[in-house]
């Protein structure tokens, strides 16, 4: 079970700093920093800069994202912001607008 789950009806406005795995099904505004995997589920809305070990975008993310490992933007996911990661996948059907820096 993921360490931190932000459920569908929940909104967090502020900074989140964690070493846990994070699953976002709700809304996060501010910044999100994790030392582990962050997944944004289909209904999740993140208006924040995200930093994680790895990130999976299934929902909507507006903000710059940095991952030490990989970033996956899934079909149905939407990312507006810059991406900095060593590995990146953008699935068919995903929506992305921003710069990519893979030179990590």
């Amino acid at each position, binding site marked *: *079970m993921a360490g931190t789950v932000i459920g569908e009806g929940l909104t967090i406005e502020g900074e989140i700093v964690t070493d846990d795995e994070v699953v976002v099904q709700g809304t996060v505004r501010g910044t999100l920093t994790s030392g582990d995997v962050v997944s944004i589920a289909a209904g999740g809305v993140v208006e924040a800069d995200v930093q994680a070990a790895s990130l999976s975008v299934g929902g909507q993310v507006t903000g710059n994202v940095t991952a030490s490992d990989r970033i996956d933007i899934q079909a149905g996911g939407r990312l507006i912001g810059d991406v900095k990661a060593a590995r990146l996948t953008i699935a068919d059907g995903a929506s992305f607008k921003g710069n990519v820096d893979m030179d990590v």
Partner: protein
Amino acid sequence: MSDGSIIGRTTTIRGHVTGTGAIRVEGRVEGDVVTDGNVEVAPEAQIQGAVRGATLRVAGAVAGDLSGTDAVLLESGARVVGDLSAPRIGIAEGALVRGKIETARGAAAAPAPRAAVAVRREPEAPRAASARAAAVPVPAAAGPAPAQSGRRAPPPPPPRAEAARDASPAPSGGRPGPAGAAHRGPPAAPRPRPGAEAGRTGRAAPPPPVVPSLAKGARLKKKKAGQR
């Protein structure tokens, strides 16, 4: 349907947590936790801010008021500095509490109905509350919290906001008004002081015009002068 949220053990949130559904806090929250579902505070959790929900089950540390629309239960590892307010309150052996305890009327997790009463009885109180809300950046007053902003009408004049800002820790108007204000207050940073903030929410106090029932007397008097 929200399944419930968990704030993990290594997680620190500096900001507010609001929404619907159950929440289990195992980490640290520097800000309010407001929901319409149950809230569980695990033994290793630390919350600096008010907690509002249906049933609050606290086994950790909370510096802030606890208001439940249903019950507030402190379990054996609980360490609470703040007021408890709910129709049912339980404090287990070994829990540490400092604050007022009130079962008389359940805390207003849904301040709108009680606020309507407040408006009828004391025209001052909502204005005071909205002044306090305006002390907290004005856009917040205008923006979210539909029920409350409808009740509170346009932002009050700046002088009152000044006085209210000074008075803001003192919850003499302490009712759903300030509870609502704290509820939709913006990020932790601009808040005057955390202790006072904790006192502001969840306090279902006697009506302000009569006898302001507060330790922070000086601020109260100032506020009273500004109000009347």
